[in-house]
């Protein structure tokens, strides 16, 4: 049996909501980036740097980074608990699932620190 202790909010309903809110935040961020890169005029290092140093973009990029971590965890958790199970993989299922989830956690934590260093240094 797949225990729910590894889910994001320990509750399916909570994960469902976090998945949607974080998805909308990521979509807003993506649309802002499309507007900036597609219709923002000529890009120089100074204008690009100033764009990300603005308070609005600092709020949005940090929210998007945190959303990426939450959204990514819930999505990969759903995949791992659907396919890497004892029913589909035999007795190794639990070991494979937990190893995969550990890998996802390491990747997401790397993204978090990497993103914060890019945005705040």
């Amino acid at each position: 049996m797949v225990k729910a202790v590894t889910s994001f909010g320990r509750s399916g309903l909570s994960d469902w909501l976090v998945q949607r809110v974080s998805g909308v935040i990521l979509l807003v961020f993506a649309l802002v980036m499309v507007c900036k890169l597609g219709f923002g005029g000529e890009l120089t290092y100074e204008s690009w740097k100033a764009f990300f140093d603005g308070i609005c973009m600092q709020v949005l990029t940090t929210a998007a980074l945190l959303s990426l971590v939450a959204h990514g965890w819930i999505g990969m958790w759903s995949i791992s608990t659907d396919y890497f199970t004892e029913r589909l993989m035999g007795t190794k299922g639990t070991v494979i699932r937990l190893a995969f989830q550990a890998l996802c956690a390491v990747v997401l934590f790397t993204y978090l620190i990497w993103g914060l260093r890019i945005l705040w240094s």
Partner: protein
Amino acid sequence: MLQFGLRVVSSGSLAPHPFNRLRKSGQKKCDITVKDKRPVNLDIGTIALPITAIASILHRASGAFIFFAVAILFALLGQSLSGPEGFAAAQECLNSFIGKLLVWGTLAGIIYHSVAGVKHLVMDAGIGETMEGGIRGAQLVFVVSAVLIVIAGLWVW
């Protein structure tokens, strides 16, 4: 909150497919258990994939793809914000064929995942929840994301 799982218990012969097992044995009993095993009555390998299922599995696949491919965008962003030289290096990278291909591939995954995600939000709002609505929604997701992926390709090149 209590969570109930519906479990089908059969004491018949061990045929490979649970549905067959149920029908053949003729002996079935449903019992409600608290937090027992999840219901096991679908054999994924034997189920046909209608357009709605293809749209769904692609949403998952694109999500798993983005999970790793987004590292390319992190690298480009970090490079471009590191200083004037880094900015020039990031532009250089985006001018190479491999760079364009990697970025376009990542954008394609993000575009499909986003469009399919918006369809989810629309369906959460109660729109297009019927069988016809689901098929129409899946078709719409394919058309819209294909158009956007082509536009993204033209933009990158």
